[in-house]
């Protein structure tokens, strides 16, 4: 099972690849939209890449609840342990 920090690091790499945000800026308290400037289409790309990377399903209905990096990491942790 990946640790919170491992998930954050991998997720940061994805956000960097998709949106060009420096990986170090992708911290748990950061909002995707307000802090990291990840637009809605990029968010879809991040979600699909995260599903592949972490081998989880992130339903479309759930995406709107993932406001911060921490929300996403917590969802992935829960989905992996389910």
């Amino acid at each position, binding site marked *: 099972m990946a640790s919170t920090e491992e998930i954050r690091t991998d997720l940061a790499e994805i956000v960097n690849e998709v949106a*060009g945000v420096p990986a170090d800026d992708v911290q748990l308290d950061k909002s995707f939209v307000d802090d990291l400037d990840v637009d809605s*289409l990029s968010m879809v*790309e991040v979600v*699909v890449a995260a599903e592949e990377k972490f081998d989880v399903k992130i339903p479309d209905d759930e995406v709107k609840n993932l406001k911060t990096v921490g929300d996403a990491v917590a969802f992935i942790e829960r989905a992996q342990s389910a």
Partner: protein
Amino acid sequence: MTRTVVVTGLGATTPVGGDVDSTWQALLAGTSGVDRMTHEWAQPLTTQIAAEVTVEPGEVLERVKARRLDRSGQLALIAALEAWADSGLAHAGDGASEGASEGAGEGAGDVDPERVGVACASGIGGIQTLLANYDALVHKGPRRVSPLAIPMLMPNSAAANIGLAVGARAGVHTPVSACASGSEGIALAVDMIRLNRADVVLAGGTEACVHALPMAAFGSMMALSRRNDDPQAASRPWDVDRDGFVLGEGAGILVLEAAEHARARGARVYAEVAGAGITADSHDIAQPDPTGMGATRAMRRALEESDLEPSSVAHINAHATSTPQGDVAEALAIRAALGAAADRVVLTATKSMTGHLLGAAGAVESIAVVLALHNRLVPATINLDQQDEAVDLDIATKQRDLPAGDLAALNNSFGFGGHNVALAFRTV
């Protein structure tokens, strides 16, 4: 009174150079941009040669910007930003376009964004994005189709992204007429300025379809050269041994501007776009009319609209793709359009070096014509070892000087569908 339209900026990325200057020097020197493809997918094809750009767009564009554009959009943006910077508009005044893409441009500078337009053509559009996403759909499922697929593959994507980069808020258009598209983009831009719908228009075309499917399709049409063992000699317009065109990729953008607007800001002017002639063959979907009548009418119409006599035409950059039928039909058309004046015209076929850039061809070749008039130098036509007897015209096989004085030049572009576009340019 009709507004005069001039060229104040040039930008290109081609199989012979990553910008206008390197492209022009290569064309003068007679350098071929054709080579054997190293892609694995090319191995089963009957044609394994192509003219790919010398500078990968990923080396020029910022990574995140590049991944949001189809390759055709990447090439177009590179050419447009070069042309915009070259026009001097980029650094004048402060950016007036809050919608401009970050890092892509300074905004419309000292020109009102509502007076800036785009006419960036493409023959095929974002086909590499389309095919890559279809592969993802088939092999990985619908969820893997990119949310950016539509804005990347739509044919107007390149024009729209250029508009975003410079803050263009007049019309943003994408004419589509196969291999005549790039010239049609320039013709449309001239109309936009003459009709007072814009003062500045970024005009030209882009194409990036060196990919297995288009190459297999053109191969099935028997349209491509199969001279795989001698790539640099494969594109040989008007030569007796020509056996089809060589597919190329690239983009060319010209900044066209109302003459009084250019004068008011003290812009450098390369040449005047004097007029355009656009006709249709209504003969066949793929074959040229063997009499060349549609092409003849396009050239005559361009001269008429430009108020030019055939005797003032010093140079023609021909469409001349290196196909058996097309090259002869065009030669007959030039003879018919200009009559005895055709004897004094120096022709060139820069496709002998760049290959056929389809929707970008007319744009890159218009840049070559503009520079030919500006520098009074005609670029070479390479591989013309034995001129076809049916072609009774003077073709520059080496760089050739043009005389002093007022000169005009034509650029011809013809496309599948029977589209004919002739553009007339004049020295300033």
